């Protein structure tokens, strides 16, 4: 089954790259690994018959947002994360706050796994009962500009505000 194989490969890339993003100190590598993860996710979207979302994922996330991150990392000359003084100590002897964070993340995994296991209907193959053509851009556009038109306009205002905010925040003090 090539389809299944592709799914597991892409999922492994997405999860592995994401784990490495938070697993090492150099922000430059973090950004690049996240791009790899986004690429794998785009592949999963194509498998889910959502080619437009897949391409938007590459254009918006990998092509714009990540370039912005890369730009900032380069602009600040990529300071490596400072090693804290307790970094080399045993994980269990570290300050509480870090243990707590790891614990919360582990708890979340357990909780989500439990929710998945107790849910019914998740064993059904995805898209088996789907009749509508969810892959067509035309159908997408129709719904976006009719049912969701208010949300769409609200988003454009949000982007405008964010743009102004970014300009104001990043401006050096004393500049007019």
């Amino acid at each position, binding site marked *: 089954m090539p389809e299944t194989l592709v*799914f597991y490969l892409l999922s492994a890339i997405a999860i592995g790259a994401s784990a490495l993003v938070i697993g090492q100190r150099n922000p430059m590598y973090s950004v690049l690994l996240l791009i790899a993860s986004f690429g794998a996710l785009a592949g999963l*979207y194509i498998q889910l018959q959502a080619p437009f979302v897949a391409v938007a994922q590459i254009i918006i996330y990998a092509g714009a*947002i990540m370039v912005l991150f890369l730009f900032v*990392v380069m602009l600040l000359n990529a*300071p490596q994360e400072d090693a804290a003084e307790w970094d080399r100590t045993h994980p269990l002897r570290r300050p509480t706050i870090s243990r707590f964070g790891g614990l919360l993340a582990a708890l979340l995994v357990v909780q989500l796994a439990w929710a998945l296991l107790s849910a019914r209907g998740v064993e059904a193959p995805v898209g088996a009962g789907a009749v509508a053509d969810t892959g067509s851009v035309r159908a997408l556009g129709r*719904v976006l500009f009719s049912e969701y038109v208010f949300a769409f306009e609200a988003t454009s205002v949000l982007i405008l505000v964010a743009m102004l905010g970014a300009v104001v925040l990043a401006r050096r003090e004393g500049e007019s």
Partner: protein
Amino acid sequence: MIPLGHYLFVSAVLFAIGTAGVFLRRNLITILLSVEIMLNAVNLSFVAFGRQLGTVDGQIIVFFVMTVAAAEAAVGLAIVIALFRHRESLNPDAFTSLKW
């Protein structure tokens, strides 16, 4: 055909990784990246559910998430730059005072 549960599992694992990143890392940029991982995990489950239900609504919500993520990245990175100018550090622990 891959079961819906598998997509949801991948999504759950990605979300957990993102959460762990926000809690464990001490670099503002990596923390923002972890937030992006969480948003993407949710996107994946939206698209999978949309495909399962045979509607395009899931994909449309993903577009809104993407635009919000773009706005978040722009403002977040602007804040990071402003903070870095003051303290020459990206460690969130360095920013403990409310005013300087």
